[in-house]
């Protein structure tokens, strides 16, 4: 009944989304493991990995919505934190391969053997322990976000300037990780994982476990984000999103608030990345590409910014249609995807969730609709201009 308490008030929609996810977790697990493969209701491992991937994307989307929807920080580089979490997990998984690599070297991952490296670089030390990797999964994105945010928010970098330098950040990281000298496998990244915590990574039960873990992480991440935005802290965030100078004038240490939520969001993204890697079986610098980050922002906008559950719907809807369309219309799917983004921005400025919300009197803590009247076009609403 704790949940019920958490969901008091207006977030019924969020509750239903979580309920659907919970239901999906149970149903898919049972249908995949318990039902024989030829049973009509059997859920294939393909679907499990697919849904597991979507769950991780959804968590990334929630983390973006936490800062964009509630604190007005549009990060076009959140993929960087996702990828860093992924790399931390990937390094753990690489270390688990041990001497089962192609070259049979017990200490070095294959790509180091073939670059003629003789010992493990210092930054790989410790990743053979799961606890250490788990720590790094939140710590590395958190620290980077902390440093970056401290620099940026302290000097009041905001709006598009912030967005563009987050993009520069992820772009720089992508180029750096592409370099083979960095010791992260270059363009090929980390791959050929064997097992996690002693369980074979290609075993159906491990997959279900990872899938369920992703689902639980999403639910947990959602509840955490929701708790944050419902707290006094969250109200200050909304205040600074809507009127930063005024909030500052009221005596709130704006930079500190922003920094805190930015770091939290980066950590959530890191967790999402970490769960993503064992399920897709590869992490490489492509995840750092600015376009992937922009795409993640597009999921949030498509689902509905400033709702926390909207991004979950957005991530599922966009990625599911991508999966289907790349098979059904391999040459035309970009038109559908591009068209979807355009239609949503023009006709559903509050995202897909607004389809279900027509009867609502006041939307919960979200962006107020910007009327597209001539009068309004002169000066952007503070809400939008600051984000």
């Amino acid at each position: 009944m704790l949940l019920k308490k958490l969901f008091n008030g207006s977030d019924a929609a969020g509750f239903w989304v979580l309920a659907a996810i919970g239901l999906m977790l149970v149903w898919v697990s049972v249908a995949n493991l318990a039902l024989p493969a030829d049973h009509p209701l059997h859920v294939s491992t393909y679907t499990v990995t697919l849904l597991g991937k979507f769950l991780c994307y959804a968590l990334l989307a929630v983390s973006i919505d936490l800062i964009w929807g509630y604190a007005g920080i549009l990060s076009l580089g959140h993929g960087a934190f996702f990828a860093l979490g992924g790399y931390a997990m990937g390094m753990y998984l690489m270390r688990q391969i041990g001497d089962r690599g192609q070259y049979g070297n017990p200490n070095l991952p294959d790509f180091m053997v073939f670059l003629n490296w003789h010992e493990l670089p210092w930054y790989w030390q410790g990743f053979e322990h799961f606890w250490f990797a788990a720590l790094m999964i939140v710590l590395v994105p958190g620290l980077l976000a902390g440093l970056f945010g401290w620099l940026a928010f302290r000097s009041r970098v905001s709006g598009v300037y912030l967005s563009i330098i987050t993009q520069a950040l992820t772009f720089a990281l992508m180029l750096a990780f592409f370099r083979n000298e960095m010791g992260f496998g270059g363009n090929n990244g980390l791959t050929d994982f064997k097992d996690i915590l002693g369980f074979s990574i290609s075993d159906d039960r491990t997959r279900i476990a990872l899938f369920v873990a992703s689902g639980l992480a999403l639910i947990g991440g959602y509840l955490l984000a929701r708790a944050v935005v419902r707290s006094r802290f969250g109200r200050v965030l909304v205040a600074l999103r809507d009127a930063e100078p005024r909030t500052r004038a009221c005596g709130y240490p704006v930079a500190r608030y922003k920094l805190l939520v930015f770091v939290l969001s980066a950590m959530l993204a890191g967790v999402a990345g970490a769960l993503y890697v064992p399920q897709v079986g590869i992490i490489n610098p492509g995840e750092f590409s600015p376009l992937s980050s922009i795409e993640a922002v597009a999921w949030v906008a498509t689902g509905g910014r400033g709702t926390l559950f909207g991004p979950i719907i957005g991530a599922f809807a966009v990625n599911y249609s991508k999966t289907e369309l790349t098979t059904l219309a391999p040459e035309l799917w970009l038109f559908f995807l591009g068209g979807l983004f355009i239609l949503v921005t023009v006709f559903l400025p509050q995202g897909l969730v607004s389809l279900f919300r027509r009867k609502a009197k006041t939307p919960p803590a979200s962006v107020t609709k910007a009327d597209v009247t001539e009068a309004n076009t002169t000066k952007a609403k503070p809400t939008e201009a600051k984000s």
Partner: protein
Amino acid sequence: MNDKTQPVVLPQNGISRRDFMKTVGGASLALGLGIKGALDPALAAETGPIKVGILHSLSGTMAISESTLKDNMLMLIAEQNAKGGVLGRKLEPVVVDPASNWPLFAEKARELLSKDKVAAIFGCWTSVSRKSVLPVVEELNGLLFYPVQFEGEESSRNIFYTGAAPNQQAIPAVDYLMNDLGITRWVLAGTDYVYPRTTNKILEAYLKQKGVKDEDIMINYTPFGQSDWQSIVAQIKQFGSAGKPTAVVSTINGDANVPFYRELANQGIKSQDIPVVAFSVGEQELSGMDTKPLAGQLAAWNYFESIKTPENEAFIANWKKFKKDPKAVTNDPMEAEYIAFHMWVKAVEKAKSTDTNKILESIIGVEVPNLTGGMAKMLPNHYITKPVYIGEIKPDGQFDVVWKSKGEVPGEAWSKYLPGSKDLIADWTPPINCGAYNTVTKKCTGSGG
């Protein structure tokens, strides 16, 4: 977890229950689509068409190279069907777009194998896409035919490599430069990823073994899509005018080549000053370049469109007809895929089945004719034998063959010039049955059979 399945009283100002049912309904519909593959009567497949997966990027950065191979496969399948298919069954291509996104390659491979139940997958271009697909084909016991020249250093039970290994492209090219052009100073220029890195490592070891000194080797790496080559070309020019005949061995990838060659030409470097031999520039890349300033530069491949044989001429004619474009060109990976496809067809006919395990057995030793003459043979290490050609670029974007290997060169999975792999071999026949067998310790490392 129980809490969530219990009905909850909906709040007044939230979303109405009926509206929400739509969402949930939508979600479950989506999931329903997800499992529709499982509902297909899988066993009816014995008489129906044989499905063949085509896993090449049609969008994103790699579409430029890979989309041609998709059309190539469609043409080969259509030709085979016109001949009556395989085992009396038609072939049905299943085209998907992995969109130059590496994790998506793995997802799509899984979809092809477990949802569409394809008998074999032809696909991938970059090594990273293959590495991404590898665990999937091994887990689901599928077949992947990989048609692009690459760095080697891999042999999977479920993958067949019909492109060139370094010993079938890079080493002969260096030999040619050394012996025929008298080159003594070397620039190894590449894009910073695994293929150039490995190739350059192998070449460096090889050159040093031939007595080339450290100061006569310059190694340079650039990022993907490098478009500003001014400084690097100037450096190469300086390095190359120290009085010793110098050549550039280029493993520069795709898009970066146009600005690279353009800068070479503009800075006045001609093929007789500093010849450039490229491993990733073929007819198709040249069709997107202004080739006049490139005349005389070199490329090493296992196939050139300009080689005159009846098979090749028929292939080219079919391709132009299929593309409805008289200017369409053919290239090396297309031939590699042509060989791969025909090897698979032969193996299926030999095994009288599309079952993976049966094909893994029957395909070893299968021979099909190359388009340029001679036979390609599938070796126990899942590589094939290939002839090596070195060609000079002609102003019309075709190649003039200036050197040809004596007979076919068998592909080596593991380079003997790399310290990590010099003791390794791959052999997928009993008793070894291993992709990375250490001949010294007599142990199978990596994935064994």
